[in-house]
């Protein structure tokens, strides 16, 4: 995401205007977007930092408690487990959803009969919402009649059937696999487009030098995909950190808190008081602030890596 230097072509007429008149069209053009953004995103973002310093159930007068919410978070076992779930989910999905689509895209570059059809089929799950994905897999993974167990039995692997989503140690890996199922097509398409931008002469030259197919992939294809790979990794990190829809729809964080990510925990604290507990807006926003800081750190790390590579 390179930022371009501001282009300020001062035409013959504009040069003589006083500066505020020169800026007027630009300001008017940007204003509607900026107003909408500030009103419904920017101001609430600042608000979440503000509320994180209060004890507040969403109504009545917020009570200022300084950093107490953060102190309590540090000792909250549910928060700690949400951090672990979010980290495991983010790191694993990022690794899988970067490497697998890249390899599949490289495989698709060979000439296959019906290659375009197969690619489209793999692409389809990626346009389906994570809510539908989560709800569908919740059904498909159920014992008695769920697709997964029926399919395993059909393959003679009925012994592998188990209550996938009721097992606290299996649930996060299962979510990660479902995430890969859903997103593979999306990242595949990005890589596939990136592959088509590679200069064929690179391959010609290397082949003249006697490079093998594997060497071409290793020394030409993968390095040429660097920009695309950076994009895919960044998207995956952001999506992993804020994961909500898929987990909320598939397990609602359960069993217990075994698959409760930071986003799900935040949401449940604020809105999902199933057991009638009062909403904890201030406390939930403290989690939001922690997520914001994590996003900032991620951004700085990714940027630093990019810059070092380019240098």
């Amino acid at each position, binding site marked *: *995401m390179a*930022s*371009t230097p*501001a*282009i*300020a*072509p001062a035409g013959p007429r504009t040069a003589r205007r006083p500066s505020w008149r020169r800026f007027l*069209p*630009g*300001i008017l*053009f*940007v204003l509607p*977007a900026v107003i*909408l*953004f500030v009103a*419904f*995103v920017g101001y*609430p*973002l600042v*608000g*979440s930092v*503000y*509320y994180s310093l209060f004890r507040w159930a*969403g109504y009545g007068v917020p009570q200022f408690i300084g950093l107490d919410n953060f102190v309590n978070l540090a000792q909250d076992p549910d928060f700690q487990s949400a951090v672990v779930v979010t980290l495991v989910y983010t790191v694993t999905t990022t690794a899988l959803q970067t490497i697998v689509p890249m390899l599949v895209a490289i495989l*698709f*570059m*060979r000439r*296959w009969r019906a290659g375009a059809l*197969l690619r489209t089929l*793999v*692409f*389809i799950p990626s*346009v389906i*919402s994570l*809510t539908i994905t989560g*709800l*569908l*897999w919740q*059904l*498909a993974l159920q014992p008695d*009649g769920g*697709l997964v167990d029926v*399919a395993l039995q059909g393959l003679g692997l009925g012994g592998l059937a188990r209550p996938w989503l009721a097992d606290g140690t299996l649930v996060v890996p299962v979510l990660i696999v479902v995430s890969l*199922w859903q997103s*593979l097509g999306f990242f595949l398409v*990005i890589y596939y487009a*990136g592959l*088509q931008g590679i200069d*064929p002469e690179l*391959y010609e030259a290397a082949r003249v030098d006697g490079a093998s*197919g594997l060497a071409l992939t290793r020394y030409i294809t993968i390095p040429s995909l660097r920009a695309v790979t950076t*994009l895919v990794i960044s998207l995956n990190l952001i999506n992993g950190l804020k994961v909500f829809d898929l987990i909320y*729809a598939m397990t609602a964080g359960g069993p217990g808190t075994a698959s409760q990510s*930071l986003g799900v925990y935040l949401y449940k604290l*604020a809105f999902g008081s199933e057991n009638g507990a009062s909403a904890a807006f201030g406390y939930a*926003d403290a989690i*939001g602030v922690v*997520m*914001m800081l994590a996003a*900032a750190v991620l951004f700085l790390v990714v940027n630093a890596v990019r810059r070092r590579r380019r240098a």
Partner: protein
Amino acid sequence: MSAVASACSARLAGRSIPGRIVGYVFLIALALVSVGPLVWMVLTSLKPASEVFVGSLLPRHPQLDAYLYVFQNLGIGSYFLNSVVVTGITVVGVIVVSSLAGYAFAFLPIPGKRIVFGVLMAALLLPAALFLIPAFVELRTLGLLNTQLGLALVHTGAGVPFAIYLMRSFFEAIPVELRDAARIDGAREFSIFLRVALPLCLPGLATVAIFQVLFTWNDLMLSNGLIQDRSIQTLQPALYTLVGEHASNWPALTAALTIAAAPVVVFFILVQRLFVAGLLAGSVKG
């Protein structure tokens, strides 16, 4: 494209037949795993209730009763329309404000331009969970909580940064001479934008619209948090509630999921090419 493809296939021309068979088996298995659960969803929606848990994949007596049921008894049609309304307002709003802003960020002098743009881009990284609660409080204060307009406004604000980013890169591809020529002819900035620049960026508008449809139609968190009145709820939260309430009525649930998924699948197969072009237009450049 064909150049690379031929380079690759030329390089693999000597590849063994067994190698190609393994490749086909792998790719076909991958395609089956990708669409299998969706096919199962459709097949289950066609089954009578008595056939759901017997473990056969194909319905023995296919019927459409479940579809009638979800329209007549579960009101899926009105949730669907609610989603259309919210998505429609959001897409129009995002297109109007972000094409104007994208044009300005590409061409016009603005004080603090890089900083404003940088702040907008930083917001791309932040999860919706972060501004959900204050947005909830704000909409409540404005009397817009539990309204489709309120939800659409928050979606619009959230969609603006990415849309501006895309539109700016589309506008930057326009030759500067073209714009300057119009300017020398005495055209005002807004008519240059509307008559000269915008018609050249229709693919950009289409890309923004496609992404915004995807974001808004598929969203769960904002839609669930900001509208709690069931009668005006959108599709994704409604599906979530339905699965909770009718947990054992699989034909109805899978019929509802199919109705929600089908239009998006058809739409995206049709616009797949545009979708990729748009994504690459901005993103890979850096």
